[in-house]
């Protein structure tokens, strides 16, 4: 079910500004890969190129190849909409749909795509909410507005919404940066469970979090403000945090800069 991502020679632009340059890496299926690096180094931009959300930004365009198993996401005739059904995303700030109930929020991906059977919907919603460790907290108020939940619950609701469409890959853009430590813990536990079923890529500013949840870690950096961001190295998390092969990574992790 989970798929491998193979990126080669990828650059992303905002208009004429090159935000990331020539990135190549492999993301293994059924694992958690963390992106770390200073602000503005292009981690989030790179993440958004993996499900073609980058081009939603006006002026955004991408060069290079992203292979999802053996399909190029940027190949000719590829529909970004079907890419996004394969590669789901969770955003920095919880963003449940304000007009919809908890139930409808989880069912949104299926309902809005029009491809569902009423009888299956209840099961999918329950399964997704259980998968996001939220079922026990909301099962009695499925018809209440989703925006009435707490921040941590809202973020888990967004995760439930993302996994309800059964993507192959789940991208998370700083999913815990707006949450308290307890909610963060809940989400980190959840990431550990979800990696059994999905390929997970997570952007984080919290290095302890990267060390806790990820199997592999990629370090991004930029030479100077206005220069494009680059991938410095990607390796097993243990190695990155104990004995990285590049000096800049060690400097960043040990807090000598940034």
């Amino acid at each position, binding site marked *: 079910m989970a798929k491998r991502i193979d990126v080669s020679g990828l650059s992303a632009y905002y208009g004429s500004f090159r935000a990331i340059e020539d990135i190549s890496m492999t993301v293994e299926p059924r694992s958690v890969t963390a992106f770390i690096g200073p602000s503005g180094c292009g981690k989030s931009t790179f993440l958004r190129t993996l499900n073609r*959300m980058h081009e939603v930004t006006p002026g955004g365009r991408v060069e290079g190849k992203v292979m999802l198993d053996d399909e190029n996401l940027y190949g000719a005739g590829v529909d970004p909409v079907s890419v996004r059904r394969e590669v789901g995303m969770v*955003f920095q700030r919880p963003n449940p*749909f304000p007009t919809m109930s908890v139930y409808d929020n989880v069912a*949104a991906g299926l309902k809005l795509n029009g491809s569902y059977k009423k009888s299956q919907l209840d099961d999918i919603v329950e399964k997704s909410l259980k998968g996001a460790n939220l079922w026990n907290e909301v099962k009695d108020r499925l018809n209440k507005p989703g925006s009435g939940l707490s921040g941590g619950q809202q973020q888990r609701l967004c995760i439930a919404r993302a996994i309800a*469409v059964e993507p192959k890959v789940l991208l998370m853009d700083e999913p815990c940066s707006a949450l308290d430590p307890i909610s963060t813990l809940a989400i980190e536990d959840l990431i550990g469970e979800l990696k059994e079923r999905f390929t997970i890529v997570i952007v984080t500013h919290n290095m302890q979090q990267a060390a806790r949840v990820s199997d592999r870690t990629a370090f991004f950096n930029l030479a100077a403000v206005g220069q494009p961001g680059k991938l410095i190295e990607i390796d097993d998390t243990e190695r990155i945090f104990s004995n990285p092969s590049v000096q800049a990574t060690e400097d960043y992790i040990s807090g000598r800069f940034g």
Partner: protein
Amino acid sequence: MSTLVQHPSSLQGARLPKWSPWAIAVGSVAVSIGLCVATGIESKIQWGLIAALLFVFGTYFIAAGVEGKRQAKDRIATSMVWVAFIIAVVPLASLVWETVKRGSKVLDGYFLSHSMGVVSDTEPGGGIYAAIIGTLEQVGIATLIAVPIGVLTAIYLVEYGRGHLARAVTFFVDVMTGIPSIVAGLFILSLLLIFDMSFSGFAGALALAILMMPVVVRSTEEMLKLVPNELREASLALGVPKWRTILKVVLPTALGGITTGVMLAVARIAGETAPVLLLVFGNPFINNNPFEGAQASLPLYIYQQYANSAGSEAAYDRAWAAALTLIAFVMILNLAARGIARWKSPKTGR
């Protein structure tokens, strides 16, 4: 006064008592009346203006004396806001009061359910049934034309429009906002003449639609811009196509605001007289068909009753009653819009 006693603490200064603004207001009104009676100024408006000036400056000097300069500036700002508020509300309240007082004289079931027919303009009797029918039909048709076009234009501008075309559309919408209603009427009139057609409620509705469209575009545009981008991205990231995202996520989120905007636009065109005068012409008899023949309409009825009255009390009363009906119509629409906006707006309850 105990409140004027200087406190020893450096954080506590002397404060005017809570009731002091009211006292100053009453005082300045009294002084103004006295002053005006003494000097023989008769205009009530001048009385009011003098009282307002006395209030603003009185507040400043009293506060400056007791509380200090900074608090005095604070109080002068507050008092000017209040004076501006009262200046704005007085004409509105007096207009509503005057219309209710004069309009309620002949406004009854008979007035609402009968038309002028053969009743002469100078005699009592008759009613506004034909005018109500005309206004409802013309405004209804104009809304049916203008709202879809306006909302779709706004969706284009916010969700799709880039570059020259979008800028041109925005520019022309701005220009359209400034079109005088008589010009919109003349534009449709020229079309009528070119195609050799005659007066009808539909022609009036076309002109009203021209006036309504830019208002709908503007308000819808603002409402769509208020929808957070995160919601669009959340929906797109679920693999929902853009058009469905707009239809199922963006529009429902903005629906309350869009409805309010549409209702305000309806209220604006319901009172338009000029294009109706040119294109609908007015009709004392009931004409239920908006596509053929002259129709009546409320604003036009008011104008005609006033213009053709020849000093007759009965015609004046009918004009006021029709004005009251029009105001009530617009107000009911506004209340309905607010109700819909509250009902449809994003829920935050737990």
